[in-house]
């Protein structure tokens, strides 16, 4: 079932992303104020949505499900890890596309805006989680550590967000993000925007499923290697 779902999901996601690219680059009209720059709206918000909401929520929920004794299963651990791994890629892409957009519209690659700062911190936390996963340990120990780490990082996110918003508003002038991010869009532009959200969400889900399968195969391979090694030792002891 999972395999057919993944096989279906892949081509559909890729096709939708391709459609989004064609519509975004060639069919939709340029904006009056921003010109061709507005085409970034068909990538950047969708990437941010996937990175900051879908990936993060998925990692949090899966970690919680793992820690809850009744639903404890390595499936959730692998899903959380896959979501974080793909989430990191999307978070970094969000920052990169945002920078590319920011340079011509605000004149700078980076501004210490609340949203940018929290996104950057979130990316570092995601990376920390992945570093923690690389630490050699028993799979169950690792799963528990990672689930706890994801959970305490998730608790930190609202605190980070609030402190950064206050820091930002008390420290600098008003944010420039909002005035630029809400251009009046309608018609084809709105539909393309909507399509980009669907396309990137499906793409994310597909990548997570693929990553999950690799993770499962990897763990199976480790178990098989261990069994082989044990068998070899037994053979050594056996009389010829």
């Amino acid at each position, binding site marked *: 079932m999972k395999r057919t779902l993944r096989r279906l999901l892949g081509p559909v996601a890729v096709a939708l992303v391709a459609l989004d690219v064609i519509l975004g680059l060639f069919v939709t009209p340029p904006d009056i104020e921003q010109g061709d720059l507005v085409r970034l709206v068909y990538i950047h918000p969708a990437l941010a949505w996937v990175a900051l909401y879908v990936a993060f929520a998925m990692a949090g929920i899966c970690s919680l499900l793992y820690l809850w004794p009744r639903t404890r299963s390595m499936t959730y651990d692998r899903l959380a890890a896959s979501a974080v791994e793909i989430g990191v890629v999307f978070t970094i892409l969000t920052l990169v596309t945002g920078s590319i957009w920011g340079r011509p519209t605000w004149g700078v690659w980076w501004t210490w805006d609340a949203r940018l700062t929290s996104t950057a911190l979130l990316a570092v936390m995601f990376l920390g989680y992945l*570093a923690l996963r690389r*630490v050699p340990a028993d799979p169950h120990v690792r799963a528990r550590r990672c689930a706890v780490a994801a959970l305490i990082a998730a608790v*930190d996110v609202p605190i980070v967000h609030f*402190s950064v918003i206050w820091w930002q508003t008390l420290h600098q002038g008003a944010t420039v993000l909002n005035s630029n991010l809400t251009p009046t869009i309608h018609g084809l532009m709105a539909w393309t925007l909507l399509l980009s959200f669907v396309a990137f969400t499906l793409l994310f889900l597909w990548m997570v499923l693929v990553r999950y399968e690799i993770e499962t195969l990897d763990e199976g391979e480790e178990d098989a290697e261990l069994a082989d090694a044990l068998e070899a030792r037994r053979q050594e002891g056996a009389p010829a």
Partner: protein
Amino acid sequence: MWRDAGLVAGRDLRIELRSRVALWQILPFAVLVLLLFAFALGPSRQALRQSAPGLFWLAVLFSSVLAAQRSIAIEGTPATRELTRLLGLDPAGIFLGKALALFVELVVLEIVLLGGIVLLFHVSIATWLLLLATCLLAAIGLSSASVLYGSLAGGARTRATLLPVLVLPVLAPVLIAGTRALSASFVGGGPDGLRWLSILAVFAAVYTVLGIALYGPLEESS
């Protein structure tokens, strides 16, 4: 739980008193960080005074990571683990005790560093009460979060490099709020400081509660 916490805190502090590692390595490191910051910024009084609160908290943060690594290393030795199991200590108590010991160390560190920035960075303190509350609340949050992450960060081989990566982004709110509250206490801005104190208080409460709840399951699994 409280009795166990007292025992563990007493033990940790006694080890620190006898080994003097905190005194001869971590404290000098913190002061050194202040000096290096001054070298990086140049001798201009204005610049030093303006950046003093932020530099103060950065020095505290870096030193607290070192202190936390020591504190966790104590817990990791086989003899300590065996003794802890045999005594049947409550994990929540162990967490509280370790956090308490680290808290005391951090407060000492903060006092020394405050002296350092008053002397070296030419700041003067306007609101003592705000300063006191900031330092205490931040120390609670820092010690709880560091102990919790220290127990997460795995064995001794990986901890030295992994702990800073894990814990420093999480401590970002303490750095931001602590810096703002401290600079408010230097210029005498009450209401502004209170707002930042509330972030420090929430952070301290959240991580203490999380630590009490999660330290047990983490330790028994590793």
